[in-house]
Each structure stands twice: as structure tokens, then as C-alpha cells.
């Protein structure tokens, strides 16, 4: 019960983090000319951040409940 709740809360927090990262003003920080490894900064940022977010979600979901208690 408590583990389920903690998992839910962690996922909600990740969702909110995602809303923050993929919005103004964070996006604006990367909305400029230039490239990273040949890829425009904004595109590179979005895909990398997206991948990281998914990785974090996998981590939260797949971690066996050794958490909190």
C-alpha cells in the first residue's frame, strides 16, 4: 500500500518535472543557434531530455520496493 503510494508520488513528480522541462522558459534556454555533435541544440536537448525522463520512469517503476520503509 505505502510502496504503491510512494511509487505513484514519484511518478507524479517526474511528470511535473517533464512539464517543466518541455515548456517555456526551459525550452527557451536551448532555443538558440549552434549544434551539438552536428545536431541543432534544441533538437538535441529535447531528445536527450526525453530519453532521460523515460529512463527515470523505468527506474522508478522497475525498482523493487526497497524504498522508503
Amino acid at each position, binding site marked *: 500500500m505505502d510502496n504503491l503510494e510512494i*511509487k505513484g508520488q514519484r*511518478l507524479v513528480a517526474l*511528470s511535473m518535472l517533464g512539464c517543466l522541462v*518541455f515548456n517555456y522558459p526551459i525550452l527557451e534556454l536551448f532555443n538558440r543557434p549552434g549544434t551539438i555533435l552536428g545536431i541543432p541544440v534544441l533538437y538535441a536537448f529535447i531528445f536527450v531530455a526525453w530519453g532521460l525522463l523515460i529512463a527515470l*520512469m523505468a527506474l522508478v517503476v522497475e525498482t523493487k520496493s526497497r524504498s522508503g520503509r
Partner: protein
Amino acid sequence: MLQGWVIIVVSFAYLGLLFAIAYYADQRADAGRSVIASPYVYSLSLGVYATAWTFYGSVGRAASDGVGFLPIYIGPTLMIALWWVVMRKIIRICKQNRITSLADFIASRYGKSALIGGLVTVIAVVGIVPYISLQLKAVSNSFTIVLQYPEIVMPAKVGAVPFLHDTALGVALILAAFAIAFGTRHLDAAEHHQGMVAAIAFESLVKLLAFLAVGIFVTFGLYNGFGDVFARAEASSRLRTMLTPLDAVAGSYASWAWLTILSMLAIMFLPRQFQVAVIENVDEDHLNKAIWLFPLYMLAINIFVLPLAFGGLLHFPAGSVDADTFVLTLPMAERQELLALLVFIGGLSAATGMVIVETIALSTMVCNDLVMPVLLRLRVLRLNQRRDLTGLLLGIRRGAIVLVLLLGYLYFRIAGEAYALVSIGLISFAAVAQFAPVVLGGIFWRGGTRRGALAGLAAGFLVWFYTLMLPAFARSDWLPIGFLEHGPFGLALLNPQQLFGLARLDHITHAMIWSMIANIGAYVGVSLSTAQSAEEHRQASLFVDVFKRSGEAGGARFWRGTASAPELFDLLARFLGPASAQAVFQDYARGKGVQWPGDDLLADAEFVHYVETQLAGAIGASSARIMVASVVKEEALTIEEVRQIVDEASQVVAYSHQLEQKSRELEAATTELRAANERLQELDRLKDDFVSTVSHELRTPLTSIRSFSEILREDPEMDLTQRKKFLDIITKETERLTRLINTILDLSKLESGTTEWHETSIDMKDVIESTMTATSQLFKEKNVRLEAKLPERVPRLVADFDRVTQVIFNLLSNAVKFCEAGKGRVEVALAEDNGFLRVDVSDNGPGISPKDQKVIFDKFRQAGDALTDKPRGTGLGLHISFHIVEHYGGRIWVTSRPGKRTTFSFTLPLAREPAPVNAT
């Protein structure tokens, strides 16, 4: 090899493969070995989100908007993270109430209202038809384009096709056949379509592989990787602007944010998503894997969109080829026939997957929430008297599937050319977003009422229709275009795309803002100003508190009346067929430990509720309610009674929480008491030990005094030297006795806190030196060396000179006592240590075992075995020292290992307010 017949054969082979997979999965399911009972299949089936719109349209949108296509795929990632909280609840509610569609869900929540179910169905059908037409358009277009190979000609320029050669119609009919075969094979109260889900999961794999294949070909075959594509785009003056500024390319940040929100809602409320995510879910735990696998799928299918878009723009002269077709035309232009064929199949799989699931979901809604409630109310049809209605139900669903597909086809023929793929899809997204307030509000807020939900849905739908659908009609020349430019009747304020003068927004953002304001406003406003009926109140409580109740019996508490089992059986048999009804009854009877048919089945509240729930699975909640009510005599509950039952239930929950709390507290108290009791017993034992040790210690000198006195009394002739020796012993023993008694008195004062402390400023160095002088005789007697390591100067501290002397004296006399005569060496060290003065007294005696170290500062404790070792002191010295040091806020401890040096250390704080006299 891209002749027409090859393409047609391959397409049919592919559809045949789908049929085979679905058939196999259905067979497996009937044999009880489900293939969809896997989180991976579940995650893949969610991929039905990616339709032809994703497959072809993303590249099209990217070619004009850059990153503007991404919110549609990032939104679901953000939403699915919330699924653990939201979707798990919805799935649980649907399982408990046998809900089989989104319309049923909303209708059930708001008092099993047939009106709401109907309204939701209408919104869903009207909203989704353009979306289905989009899929047909994509398949038809891609087919037409492939047919022109090796030329690359846009479908618009191909000219009119004769009716019989109309691909879209053919596709629509084949898909209808598929949906009918696997979506309406039989009536099942659980409404799982295992064959369909297996086929959809397979289609998700096919479209992903096809898209990745063309993406890799273009990125790494036509160009030298991502960097190369972007570098060339940078070099082209036409494309350079698309590479950076988000606001200039993807529209404003507001569009970006609203698209994200829109897709977050779409992933939950599109009928097909609701179907695969909720209705077809066989295990809540599958959510775990889906929460990260599905976003990963979205990420994978989007990685090559931008390279494809730029590749297409660079490859074809501006305006010659529609960007929506780049995925297909790039391999064709490069003469990659196999790849082009694979892409065509990928697009076909994306379109068919969507159409199949969407039509099945919509047909369930149309049948259960639109047609059946009407038919059951029409008394002329005498449906109540018909023996078997399963055929009718299946017929309605099949008809609905064909109807929806034909509507989609019609829309495609009439209006499909006016818009790009993405725009049509977004209109549908905005339509289903209207369900969000009533669903999300419904599962978390008890207060939403039937009228509120009706008002919210209706208001949202009307605004959506006015701001998105009418302009779409106007563009298709169904309405005068002036309607868009100047508003209806020339009223600029009512311009559907700039409502009340809200300009400078794209159409979708504009429509979402107004429709959500209308929807949420009406839902909340009307809910707050209308009252719930008994039925609504009970349903609200069942939905909101789904995790607080256990089992399906939750709703049974609200029913009162009489019914008979055979009548209920007849009812169920009419809708499910006798065989299914028999199975349902036997299942229930087994749970109750009785036989059916045979034993009397008690038709109590729980049973009636069970039958109603099963029936709801087949014909929807509101119809099931009507049908069950027609065969049982029930007493209507008043709103007060329902409220009371709900309150009682929540009170019981509250009580049980309190009880649990109390019992936990009690347990804690018991543990504490047990510990206290153990401590008391220990103290009692210590007291006994103390008394016996004291008596022993007192008796030894007393015995010796008495015996020597007796000798003196009985032998008057004793010579003087002998007499003097005896008297010396008596005096010594008396002194020892006095000392012992003084120590005990001292200790009891210390322990009771009545000791007088004479505080003065003392120099620790002096104290140590004077104590060493006082004990030097002891050391000399035993021939033990005493050394001191004292610093030049140490800060003075405020303490009782005599007490501190007593501590050092105890430690020194202890040390000398335990040293071996002749070889012993005792060392005294003094140091300033972090605000404290620290004194170490170490000796090279036998050492103290760890077990003894723990208790050595207790009363009458001595290292070693009390039985075999001769006691070498009262055992009170260290205990008293402990009290004295503790009084000054210092610490005393011992470090020792048997056989090594033993060091007793204590610290006294330097900066200390003088302790009040007689303080404890």
C-alpha cells in the same frame, strides 16, 4: 516490381496475416492460454496511438513546423507517468463495474444516465469520424502514389478515380470485415478481444520497423548521418530558419503547451486508447512495463522524423511533392522498391490498427449507449418478451462498425482534401479532450452531478463544433467562406476562429481554450448548484472510493427488494445467450458453495447486483439497470438512505482505522511496559546483590575484630607485643569498616543528589600531583612504577577539589591494585581536548574483557569472576567516580583488551558555569 497487382497481393497477404494472428490468439484464448497476458503485448497494443498520421503526417508537420510535431508525442510521456495514479483507478473501476466503453464509464459515474451515455457516444462518433477518414485518406493516397512508380505524382494530380477502383472504399470494407470478425465474434461480459489485441500489437511492431528502416535509409544511406542532414539544411537558405527559433517555427509557446495538454488528454480519452488501455487490460500490473515501454516506443518512432523531413525538403524541389508523403516518396525516388513496399505496408498497418480498434470501441458505444437504451424504451418492439437478444446485439454492433467506416469514407470523399493529415487528427483530439473534465472530475471529486456532467459535455462539444468543425465545413465549401472571414451574419465578435476577438492563436489552441472554459465552467458550476439523486450519490461513492472497497459486492449494499433466481437467469440468457448465462450462474453458485441448477440460489442484494454487473458488460450500465429493474421488485432508496449507507461505510472504515491505530498504540505500550519490567527486575537483582555484598564486606572486618577481641579477653596472660599487634589489627579493621560505611553513605548521597559540592577554581595539574603524592606509598609497597605526562600549563576549571581528587585516587588505586608486583607500570596523562580536560590513567595489568567493560562502572562490579577471583576492593570506587564525572557533564570510559594496556579516561568540561550547590 511495384506493379499494381504486386501491391494488392502483398497488401492482402499482410491483411491475411493479421487475420491469422487474430484467429490464432482467439483460439489460444479459448484454450485458456492467452497470448495477450503479457506486459509487452499490452505496451505494444498502446502503440495504436501512432496512426497513419504519425507515420506520414509527422514528417509533413516537421517539414513546415520543425519541432512543432513533438508535443503530440511528448504529452503521452508526461501523461503515462500519471497513469499509476489515474489509470490504475479507472481500470479498477471498470473491472468492478464491468464497464466496456468510455461512454459507459461516464454514464455509470453519473447515475447510470442513458442521456449522458448517448451524448458521449455522439461526441465520440462525430469527433472520431474525421480521424477515421484521415486513415482512409492516407491508405488511399499512399496506394495511388505507389501505383505511379517510377513516376512521383501527387494524388491530387492523378485525377478522379472510378467508383469501383476507389481504394479507400475497398480498404474501408475490408477493415469493417476484420473489425466484425474479431470485434463482435461473440458477446462476452468481460469484452476482451484477444485476437484483436494480438493483431494490433503485431501492427505496432510492423509500423515501427518500417519507419525505422526508411529513417535509417535516408539518414545513413542518402546522407552521412544526422549531422550531415542538419549541416546541409543549415547550408540551404530555405531551411536555415527552421533549425532554431521555436517561436517562429512551431508557433508560440502557448501552442506548444496546448498541444502537449491536448495529447495528454488524447492518450487517455481517445476511444481506441481507452479500449486497449482499460477495457482490454487483463492485469493492472501490466501498467508497470507500459509506463516506460510506451514512451520509449514514441521516442523510437520519432527519432528519424526530422532527418526525413529535411531530407525530403532538400531532395525534392520546393512545392513539387507533398511533405506528408516524404516517407514513401524518398525511397521511391531512390528506386528502392522493396523499401517503398515496406513503407507502404507500414503505413497500412498504422492506418488499419487505428481503424479496427476505433470502430470496435465506437460500435460498443453506439450499441450499448445509443441504440439499446432507445430500443429497450420503445414498448412497441416488445423486446422484453423476446427470448434471445444476443443476435440483435451482435447485429447492432456489426451495423455500427460498417456505419462508422462508411461515415469516415463519406467524410474523406467530401471534406478530406481540404486539410493536411495533422490538422484533421488534432480536431479529433480536441473533441475527445471534452471527456477529460467529467472523467477526471468523476473519479476524484464526489460532487459532480448528472446535470453538471451533461452541461459540461454539451457546452464543450458545442464550442468545439463551432470553433473547429464549422470552419472545417466552411473550408470544404459546405458553408460560405465569408463565415470564417467576417463571422456569422457579419458579427466579427462571433468569428469562429477568433471568438470574442481572441486572435493571434492557432485554431486548435483557440478552440481548446474556449471549449475547456465552457466545459469545466458548466460542469463545476452546474454540479455545485444541483443536487444528486440517490443513484448518482451511490455511483459517485463507488467510483471515487474504489480503492477503499473490496470486491464487486460494493454496490450491493445499496439495493433492497425481492427477486427470483430463475427470472434473473432468463434475463441474462436473453442478452448473453443461455450458455454464457449458465456459466455466469454456475460461477457465482460455486463461490457460494451451492449447485446451479439444483439448489435454490438466494436472490439477495449481492446476487442481483452481480447479475446487473454481468449484464452491464453486454449492454451497458444504464440499459442493464432498466432491464434488472423490470424483473425484480425493488424498493427505491431515498437520497438520505444512500447517504446514510455511504456514511456508515466511511464510518466503518474510519472506525477500523481507529481500531488499528489503538491496537498499534497498545502494542507499543506493552513493549514499553515489558522493557520497564525487565529493568525493574534487573534493579531488584542489583539491590539484592548490593545488600549481600555490603553485608559480606561489613562482616569480614567485623568477624576479624570480634575474634581478636575475644582472644584478648580470654587470654589475659598474653604478652604486650602480641597484644599490641592484635590491637593494631582491630584498629585497622575498624578504620576499614568506617571507610566502607563512609563510602556507602557517600554513594547514597551521590545517588539521591544530596551531596554538597564545594566549587572552587582548581588546577587539574595540582590535583593530579597531590593525588600522586598521596598514593605514592601504595605504589612503593607493590613496587609499581608511576609516571606522569603533564603539560606545562592547563586552563583552570571550576569543580570540587576533593571530589576530583577522589576520582583520580580511585583510578590510581585501581590501577596499582591490578598491576603485577614488580613489573607494573602506571602512567597518568593530562591533555586539553576540545573544550574539555582529559585525564588518562593507563596500566599494564591483565586487561578487562569487553563484557566486563560494559558493566564495570556499575555498583559492586569488578572485572573477573566473582566466584573464583579474590575480590580486590569494594567495587564502589568506579561507580562513585562515574557519578562525580557525570555531575560535571564529563564522560568516563575505559579502553582495554585482555592482555593489553588498560586505560581509564575521563573528561571534565572547561567553560562551565559553576554548578549550583546541592544540584543533582
